[in-house]
């Protein structure tokens, strides 16, 4: 059986996929993962998961470009300049009149 191994390098860090080991059962997998991914004290913790328990999703359609949910969905340069011009505050903006 293939077991996927996730390792945590230091406390507080996320668990990241490190690789996989083949083993007849969980107790062997534990020993083997411990050795392959921890014998140099390079990990503080490991997660072991049988491969069948993992499901990959890799398909994320965005047919209608719903960018309003992200930072790059906003372009405020032109409007900001207009607002500053109107308020007479263009020179005060960082970088002076040239700024956005």
């Amino acid at each position: 059986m293939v077991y996927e191994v996730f390792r945590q390098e230091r406390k507080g860090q996320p668990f990241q996929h490190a690789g996989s080991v083949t083993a007849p059962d969980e107790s062997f997998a534990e020993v083997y993962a411990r050795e392959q991914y921890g014998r140099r004290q390079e990990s503080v913790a490991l997660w072991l998961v049988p491969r069948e328990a993992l499901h990959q999703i890799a398909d994320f359609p965005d047919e209608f470009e719903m960018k309003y949910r992200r930072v790059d969905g906003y372009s405020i340069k032109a409007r900001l300049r207009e607002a500053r011009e109107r308020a007479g505050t263009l020179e005060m903006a960082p970088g002076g009149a040239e700024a956005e």
Partner: protein
Amino acid sequence: MSERADLLLAIADDELFLGWRNSEWTGIAPFLEEDVAFSSIAQNEIGHARALYELAAAELGTTADELAFDRRPEEYRCAPLVQLRRLEWARTIARHWLYETADEIRLEALKASNDPEIAGIAAKMDREEAYHRMHAEMWIDRLLSSEEGRARLNEAVDELWPYALGVLDDELRPELRRRAEERLGRTLPDVEPVTRGVHEAELAELWEEMTMVRRSAPAGARW
């Protein structure tokens, strides 16, 4: 030589030779993951030997390497069990498990020693050996769960049993028997232990090979 040094050398020699024997599987173990795991066990054992030699060396006015390499074959105090050259996997596992079981009993006694250095090192060794025991138990479980595995294991254990008894002092042997029999679910043969003091023929051969590079330069040469 004091009793203390004698004791330290006996255990150190056990760990050194067993570590050596186990390291012989590096690269040729039954499968790759096991190869890596078993190699760590071998390294730990050599590491234990080194720590024990250092303790004895301080008392005897020498160095760990000199104790490990520069004695004559007849001066080593290891149990015959660890000297046997057994490149067959069932016997390797049997020896591994038998030794770890005996060693656990031995370490329990040492942890209670009123010599703080000995008690301290025994505690450290025991913490690492816990993983060795886990590994041995795992293999025993697996082998016992199939007919072929059980047959091979039992044959190997029966052959090594007299040697296993020889690892421990007289008063600790009944405990080894009790634990082994409970685990295997059967009685083990009533045999004469093969004790320390009389070396297997393999030891001299092993000593030749293990010291050949070291002896090729004058004493005190750096490597």
